[in-house]
């Protein structure tokens, strides 16, 4: 169909031809007429003249008939050719052919065109092709026409509109058909729908632009490498780190642009592992430039796969953590120093007490020493965990350790694993120490057969509770003391206060002493949501 209302280069070219035909007819008619007139004169030549005139008239009639017949035959011929062309183009799906007359009106409208543009043959025929389809051309119409007349054909991309308003992109080829005299008669157009390709291209372009924007905005290093470790993509941050433009790093490996060959080999070994195992990994990498401090990066690298799922390289993102590492190290140093001071202070307190109580009751001195040791043991557990919390198992086992000699069987410890807050860990360690000391002096542990069961559990509810029970058995008959000693008071008062709960030691059980500690879980345990972070920090 005609995209462009084709304007004939010489609209008058058909007029001289018609004039010639008209003059010929006129001449022959005059000749025939003169023959008839001569015959009617009745001269000796009249018979001849009449016959001559009849022959001429017949000749003229025959000539006229022949020309009409020839024109019809040509038209039939064109129609048949167009029909074949249409059949042919239909075989190619979205390809469609149209024909427009010299004044830009649609003269032929195939079913392919109907399918592509939505207009029926009835709607399209006789309409201006350019207007009907709101055609937009890549260059001016004048230019296209000039080419069409000069070369006989033009090819290019057009944007049109479907009947329903949506945009259609086509690749169009126009051929100029000239009549016998060489004058342009019709323009044949064959177009192929490339809308889906154009849309896909546009989407691809948008995706690329988005990726490029992310790539250049992200603060870290983003890069991709092939199986040989050669760079196939790098963002600005990566190029800044390398210190070279993309043209100088494309297709090169870490060995080519890192100062330290050892570090480059280490990085490439990491890369190879990711690609060999086809698994995403996160790890730290150190890069040193000559004359500068080494920089530490947290890298996440993932295998890069082709459409078939085969690993063809890797993509990586690296975020600098040099400063974070430095702060972490300094913090660790300070925590170490603090722990050291606490332990030193405890040793000094122990020394003061030792000197002060010199010559006094050795039992008193031993009790004090043991309590200090219990406190120090609880500190040890917390120190190992950077004061971020302690496993309840570690706290319980740490508190029982000094008494465990030759009798682990005397303690039955059970309960779910959970992490205690530092304050709760210290309080629990001291409480258990007192209960154990008491059991050794007066309770189950004062006999050979006695045992202690230590069990803790989480009591679910609106406010979950941690409940720990200390149950002695097999010991001597329990006699409630006339006066509650420091140990029991420490458990019942200090422990309850530090844990934000309640604690009790029951002496009037015939079977043995029962101690119960109950505290809101939220006040004593590191919350579940925080645990992963704590574990990461402790590592």
């Amino acid at each position, binding site marked *: 169909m005609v995209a462009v209302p084709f304007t004939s280069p010489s609209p008058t070219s058909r007029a001289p031809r018609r004039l010639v035909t008209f003059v010929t007819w006129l001449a022959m008619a005059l000749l025939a007429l003169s023959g008839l007139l001569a015959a009617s004169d009745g001269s000796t030549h009249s018979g001849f003249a009449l016959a001559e005139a009849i022959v001429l008239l017949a000749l003229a009639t025959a000539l006229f008939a022949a020309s009409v017949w020839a024109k019809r035959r040509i038209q039939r011929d064109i129609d048949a050719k167009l029909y074949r062309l249409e059949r042919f183009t239909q075989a190619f799906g979205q390809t469609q052919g149209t024909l427009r007359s010299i004044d830009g009106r649609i003269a032929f409208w195939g079913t392919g065109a109907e399918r592509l543009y939505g207009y029926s043959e009835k709607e399209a025929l006789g309409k201006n092709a350019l207007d009907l389809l709101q055609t937009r051309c890549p260059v001016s119409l004048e230019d296209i026409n000039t080419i069409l007349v000069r070369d006989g054909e033009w090819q290019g991309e057009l944007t049109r509109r479907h009947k329903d308003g949506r945009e259609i992109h086509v690749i169009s080829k126009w051929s100029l058909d000239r009549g016998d005299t060489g004058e342009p008669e019709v323009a044949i157009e064959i177009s192929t729908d490339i809308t889906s390709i154009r849309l896909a291209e546009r989407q691809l372009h948008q995706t690329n632009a988005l990726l490029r924007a992310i790539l250049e905005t992200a603060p870290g290093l983003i890069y991709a490498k092939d199986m040989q470790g050669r760079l196939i993509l790098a963002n600005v941050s990566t190029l800044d780190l390398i210190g070279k433009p993309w043209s100088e790093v494309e297709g090169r490996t870490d060995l080519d642009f890192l100062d330290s060959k050892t570090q480059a080999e280490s990085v490439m070994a990491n890369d190879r592992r990711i690609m060999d195992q086809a698994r995403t990994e996160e790890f730290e990498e150190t890069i040193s430039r000559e004359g500068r401090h080494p920089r530490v990066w947290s890298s996440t690298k993932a295998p890069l796969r082709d459409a078939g799922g085969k690993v063809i390289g890797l993509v990586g993102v690296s975020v600098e953590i040099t400063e974070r590492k430095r702060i972490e190290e300094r913090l660790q140093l300070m925590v*170490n120093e603090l*722990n*050291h*001071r*606490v*332990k*030193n202070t*405890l*040793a*000094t*307190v*122990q*020394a*003061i007490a*030792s*000197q002060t109580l*010199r010559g006094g009751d050795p039992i008193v001195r031993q009790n004090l*020493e043991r309590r*200090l*040791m219990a406190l*120090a043991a609880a500190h*040890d557990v917390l*120190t*190992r965990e950077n004061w971020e919390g302690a496993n309840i198992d570690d706290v319980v086992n740490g508190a029982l350790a000094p008494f465990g000699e030759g009798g682990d069987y005397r303690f039955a410890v059970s309960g779910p694993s959970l992490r205690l807050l530092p304050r709760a860990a210290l309080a629990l360690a001291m409480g258990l120490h007192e209960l154990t000391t008491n059991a050794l002096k007066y309770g189950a542990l004062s006999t050979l057969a006695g045992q202690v069961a230590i069990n803790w559990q989480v009591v679910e509810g609106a406010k979950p509770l941690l409940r720990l029970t200390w149950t002695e058995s097999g010991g001597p008959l329990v006699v409630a003391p006339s006066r509650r000693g420091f140990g029991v008071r420490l458990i019942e008062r200090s422990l309850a206060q530090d844990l934000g709960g309640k604690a009790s030691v029951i002496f009037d059980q015939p079977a043995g002493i029962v101690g119960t500690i109950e505290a809101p879980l939220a006040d004593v345990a590191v919350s579940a949501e925080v645990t992963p972070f704590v574990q990461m920090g402790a590592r």
Partner: protein
Amino acid sequence: MNDTHIFAGIRVLIIEDEALVSMMLEEFLEQIGCKMVGTASRLDDAIIKARSLPVDMALLDVNLAGEASFPVAEILTARDIPFIFVTGYGALGLPAEMRHIPVLPKPFQMAQLIDAMRMAAY
């Protein structure tokens, strides 16, 4: 603690910057019959004494008023004198090549001191 007599009469050097802790160590050592040949609380003094004194065993605080006592440890190692580290840091605070040295963590009881000394002696 029945074999504590094995330490009777041995000459001990105490290097500890905390006077009270140093005194307590002396008291503990006297109880098992050790002979005090000297004490030091500063690194320079400790180096001189570790080099010159006739010593059978040394108790060495890791941190001497902010200075690490590892130079003293090297001298003692070179002289083949058994010693133990007395420290508030755990064994993790020690350089890798000294991790095999027995550590007496602060605070400590008599029994722990004797255990550490026994490990150093054998």
